[in-house]
């Protein structure tokens, strides 16, 4: 009798352990539901996303630039892009933009890197300009990502544009500096 009870107990434990292993190996249903769907984009071609239509119209770069009257430089390179975005059903508050290297390292438009859009009315196209500072040696194989919501990319899809920056283009960008005379901050904090 005791042996039967022990056997039943062991069987229950084994089934529970097996269930745990199977559960751990299945994807989290919430992750699956909220995952961002990536859609390949082509420069200057419109792409229809869940919350907006987007056309990435221009890509360029510079070592330093004047931004809203303020001179800003970078230890890397500023990647600058323009895009036309038409929000579909709701206002575009602040789009998400980032550069992603093939190994997953990501430079999002936060802090000094930013995206600005003219207006955000559903149905009307708005012009956006973004700039993201990245290490120049990480641009090979990198992509530009644009999505509708800066704070949350869940339940959304995302435009993914391969950058395909050539070495010549990169060297041109690294040599390009806005005139410091235009800047409000000719002197930094260095001695």
């Amino acid at each position: 009798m005791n042996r039967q009870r022990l056997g039943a107990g062991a069987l229950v434990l084994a089934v529970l352990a097996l269930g745990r292993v199977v559960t751990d190996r299945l994807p989290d249903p919430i992750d699956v539901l909220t995952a961002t769907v990536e859609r390949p984009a082509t420069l200057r071609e419109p792409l229809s996303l869940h919350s907006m239509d987007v056309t990435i119209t221009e890509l360029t770069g510079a070592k330093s630039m004047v931004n809203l009257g303020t001179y800003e430089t970078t230890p890397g390179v500023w990647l600058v892009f323009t895009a036309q975005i038409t929000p579909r059903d709701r206002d575009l508050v602040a789009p998400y933009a980032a550069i992603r290297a093939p190994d997953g390292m990501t430079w999002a438009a936060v802090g000094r890197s930013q995206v600005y859009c003219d207006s955000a009315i559903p149905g009307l196209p708005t012009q956006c300009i973004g700039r993201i500072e990245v290490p120049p040696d990480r641009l090979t194989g990198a992509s530009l990502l644009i999505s509708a919501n800066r704070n949350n990319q869940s339940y959304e899809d995302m435009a993914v544009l391969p950058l395909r920056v050539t070495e010549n283009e990169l060297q041109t960008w690294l040599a390009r500096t806005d005139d410091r005379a235009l800047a409000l901050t000719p002197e930094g904090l260095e001695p």
Partner: protein
Amino acid sequence: MGEQAAPEHIAGRGWLRRLGSWTAGRPIAQQGAGLLLVGLLVSAPFGGWTSTAPSGVRQVEVGQSITTGPLELTLLEVVESTRPSRVLRAQAGGTLIFVRGTVRVTGDRPVMLGTFGDSLRLVGIPGLRRFVGLPGAPMPADQVKPALYYTEDSSGMSAIPPGMTFPVAWVFERVTTGEDLPAALTVEVSGHTWRESGVTRGLFDWFDPTPLATTQLPLRHKPPVDDSGESSG
């Protein structure tokens, strides 16, 4: 003749003796549990079994690299100025104190102000306040978070992107107290731990700033610059 009560100290010993013999008669498991309980009660006034304050704060040299978890820092000097660049100036009656150095993110995502604002403190400097461009009351030095600026262009940083080394200044403001600053200032650097949030499931981030290292940095006075960007001193 009535029974005379034992003196107080003799009665106390008798109580102890009875407790001792009662304890000796208990099973060994109960004795162990009792010992554990007594130990916990005795330690309670000293904080119980909570972890003790970190004792691993190390002293580092000027320019020596410090890895805090999310960041790799080097600290070079402290500079005091009322207007160190065209765009940065102290409020009237104050000076800016900034720690010059470099910062680099160790991971593959940006590190945000909420994290790196806790990475550095000036120690024991009276009259400090946060540099937010507005008047404000001084606070204890260990509560004053610095603002971070990229020194090449004096632009504020609310995020540090990965993969690049930034020459930076951690900027504090100090209300003029009439006391001169010492020739060398102590800077405390805190580290963070990467762990899952206790509130939001699945959210991993850098938490728990803990003092990690201190360094003594020389102080330099920088004359204020004028509108052309030239130093007036």
